[in-house]
Structures are given as C-alpha cells and as structure tokens.
C-alpha cells in the first residue's frame, strides 16, 4: 500500500541546510498498521509531511496505492486515498466553524452530494452523539475534538490514514477510548495506518510492525512480537525500549 524508498527530506539550503530524513525505506502492506517511533527531531513526523506535500523538498521514491508521488502538489485522487489526523485537536480544528461546517466542507470538497446524511453517518462512525453536530470546538472536550478530526479524515472514505501522535495531547483514559475507536475503524473500513508516536506502548498496542528512527535515519524495522520480547537488535532501540519499560 505504501512504499518508501531511500527518502531524503531537507529544509533550507546552503549553510543552514538541515537533513531531517536521510535514506529512509519501508513498506506498509494493505490493511496493516505500521508505527514510526523516535524522539522529537528524529524525523518521524517529517516523513508524513513529505507524503502529504507539506514538506516540499524531498528526494527518493514514495508510492501510495500504486501511484508514485512527485513534488509537493497532490491531486484530488490522492486526498481521496490518503488522509491525515494531527496531534493537537485544539489546533487542527477551525475555532469558528461548527462540527457540521467542518465535516460538510470536507464532504463537499470530496465531491459528495448527500452531505446531510453523510455528516450524520460520520458522527455515528466516530461515536459522537448527534447533538454535537452544531457545536463549536470550544464546546467540546479534547477527546471529542479528536473524534471530529478523525471523522473529517474519514469523510472521503480514504484507504490510508496517517496518524501523527493522535493521542499524545489527551489524558490516558481518553487515549484508551480513541485507540479503541481507531482499532474498530480499521476493521470496519479496511484502513491502512501509518502511525507516528514517541510512546512505545501505544505503538506496540496499535501496530503490527514498526520502524525506530534516530536523527533522521531508520535504525531498525521490527515486528511487534520482537518488540514485546525485547529482541531489538540496534542499541538505540534497546535503549528506547528500556526507558519505556522502566516506568
């Protein structure tokens, strides 16, 4: 479903050039959930941004659903296939648009006509009561906002969801609800996930395979059983697992 080969992403040129991602390669199969872990600045979010065209300067090869991507322009078909959920639900929703407007706009852009019925369906899908339809973001809790953000991503019936730390701004009790929702949605809609997080237990819970990143490079790709049995090969991943298990 997703194929990344020798991906390089950099910002600025000349003296200030920063190589955020260096030679990253991995594959994500159809219906799989794949995790990217690493500390901040390791380039894990940058990979997602390069895919969606938010980081324009990249080289290498990115292929999604059989289509190779070029530059930073993405067409309608791309957004029908791939959608992204951002970290901070407080920042990613327009403060002066109601839930109905947010979802309605996404549906309109995806070219749907039966917007009214679809908005209701989306709310049901993400487990939000219909009374929330005409509320504004400030009237919702963090978990409810993240549900709206997920509903917006689902509007175009995508095949791939890019999840950028979807629960790190939430309380643990709310995190459990959102992770359960994502598990259900993947099953119901046959989605493929590419999930970024610094929280190893969360990745271990959600993903079948994961890549460990350090200063822009993928140091190791392993599956979740290896992670659970602490059979990481690279010293950095061992260290990362060590700190996560310690508490």
């Amino acid at each position, binding site marked *: 479903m997703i194929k990344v080969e020798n991906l390089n992403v950099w910002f600025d040129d000349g003296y200030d050039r920063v190589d955020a991602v260096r030679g990253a390669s991995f594959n994500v199969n159809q219906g799989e959930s794949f995790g990217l872990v690493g*500390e901040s600045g390791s380039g894990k979010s940058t990979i997602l941004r390069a895919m969606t065209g938010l980081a324009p300067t990249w080289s290498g090869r990115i292929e999604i659903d059989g289509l190779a991507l070029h530059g930073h322009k993405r067409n309608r078909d791309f957004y029908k296939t791939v959608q992204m959920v951002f970290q901070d639900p407080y920042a990613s929703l327009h403060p002066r648009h109601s839930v109905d407007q947010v979802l309605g706009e996404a549906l309109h852009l995806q070219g749907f006509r039966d917007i009214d019925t679809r908005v209701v369906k989306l709310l049901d899908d993400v487990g939000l009561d219909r009374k929330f339809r005409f509320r504004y973001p400030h009237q919702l809790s*963090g978990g409810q906002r993240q549900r709206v953000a997920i509903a917006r991503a689902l509007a175009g019936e995508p095949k791939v969801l890019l999840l950028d730390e979807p629960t790190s701004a939430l309380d643990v009790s709310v*995190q459990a609800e959102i992770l359960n929702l994502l*598990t259900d949605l993947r099953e119901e809609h046959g989605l493929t996930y590419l999930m970024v997080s610094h929280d190893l237990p969360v990745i271990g819970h959600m993903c079948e395979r994961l890549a460990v990143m350090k200063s822009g490079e993928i140091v190791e790709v392993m599956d979740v059983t290896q992670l659970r049995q602490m059979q990481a090969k690279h010293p950095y991943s061992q260290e*990362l697992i060590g*700190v996560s298990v310690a508490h």
Partner: protein
Amino acid sequence: MTLLDVQNLWVKFPNRQGVFDAVRGVSFSLGRERLGIVGESGSGKSMTGRAILRLIRKPGIVQADHIALEGRNLLNLPEVEMRKVRGQQISMVMQDPKFSLNPVMRIGDQIMEAYLLHNRTSKAQARAKSLEMLRAVSINDPERVMRAYPHEMSGGMGQRIMIAMMLIPDPKILIADEPTSALDVSVQRQVLDIMDGLVKERGMGLIFISHDLNLVSEFCDRVLIMYAGQIVEVCDADKLHDAQHPYTQGLLQSLPRLDQPRKYLPVLQREDDWQKAPIAGDQA
C-alpha cells in the same frame, strides 16, 4: 517534620451559572519528601499547586482553614510578604519552558536576575553562581548557554535552565507542575534524575504534579490521586498498583502495556458517587 500543611483548601470560580469549584476541600501535608499529585486534566491538580503560592487570578477565590509554611499561614500574608515567599521559600517549575522563559533576554541575564533579586551581591558573584547552577543541572557548556537566547535551546535544555533558575534562591519547597510532559522519554529521565539529586542533596520538599501515573509511582514517595477537585486516594508510591479506588484502578488499566497485548483497552467508567466520595485526604 512538616514543611507545609494544607487544610480544607477550596478554589472557586464564579461564573454565569453560579460558582464552579475547581478544588473542593483538599487537605494534605508535606515533609522533606517527594509528594506526587496525579489526576486527569480538570481534576484540580494544577490549581492546588497554584493556590499554595496564591497565584490564582481574580475572579478566582482561594479559601482554606490554613496553608501553613512551617507554621506561618500564607493566606493572611500581605502581598509584599508573599512576594518574598515566592521563589525564596517555595519555587515553581511550570510545564513548558517555552512559555516561562523571557524570549528576548539572554539566558544568563535571566538567571542572574533571579539571583540578584534575592541576594545583595555583585554581578560577578551572580554570574559565578549562575554558572555553578547550570553545571549542577548537567549543562556541559554553561558559558555558551549563558549567552544564548531561549529559542536556541531544546525543550530538555530549557527545562533544565528553569530548574536551575528555581533552585538558585535555595527554596524549601519546589512545586513542579508537569515539568517533563513537554519532553521526550529519554530526556524526561535525565531531567527527573537531576531533580531527584537536588531534592535529596538539599533536603527539600517536592510537590510533583503530573498526569502520568507510572512516572509518579516510580519517582515519588507518596501519591495523592485527585478526581473532580477532591483527593480520592492517598497511597505510597510503590504500592500504587495495589490502589483501592476504582478511579485509580481504571486509570492504571487504561494504559497500553508492552507485556500484555490485547485488542481493546479497558475504558474508564465514571461513576457519580466518586464526586461525593468522602474526602480521603484527611489523614494525608
């Protein structure tokens, strides 16, 4: 020995619908120990920390039988006296260094300002002391850091600088409000180790406010668990996993674990009677 004793603390915010009680009758005392306060957002844990330093802004109201720092009731002190308590006796480290450091002032000048405000000495002495404190929080090249501006620092560095600044007046109590939640796991550990060392070395009391149960159970001596403005449970940190209250158990179970794979995470089922539960903090 009791450093701080809080009895029946209430924090109230009047609003259009009446009065909202953010903290409802919290009592606890703090010795030379590491006390953790955990709870979800909105449980009143940060408000408790701020109320101790009387940092709640109007129209918020702070009421308590007493908030006693070594026998002296902070609630009756005039504002001038209170300013001497803040920083010198009780210091506070906030969550995000990005918002607590002055962005247009060199880091050295900020730390020296903190020192000069509380001590009558020369600038050279303040400078020497600042360098020493930066070294104490494991900053390798303090000379360069002194010259730098906050935006040139990473989150972990920024938080260490905040800790250095807070410790300069040698306070008796340090209140740390989510000091590591903006940091990576690997850096988190370093910052905690530094705090731990300093607290032990100087015999300070530490109030550690966090939403991270595991972190608190590992790092503190005693833990207060807050829900809806009340303390629902007090326990020894190493016995947190045997906690009795259904809320604490619910929180612990909702965490994903590497050693126990499962398809769904148990979701916390809130019950109304937790809100009116007897205040378990009396004996704290």
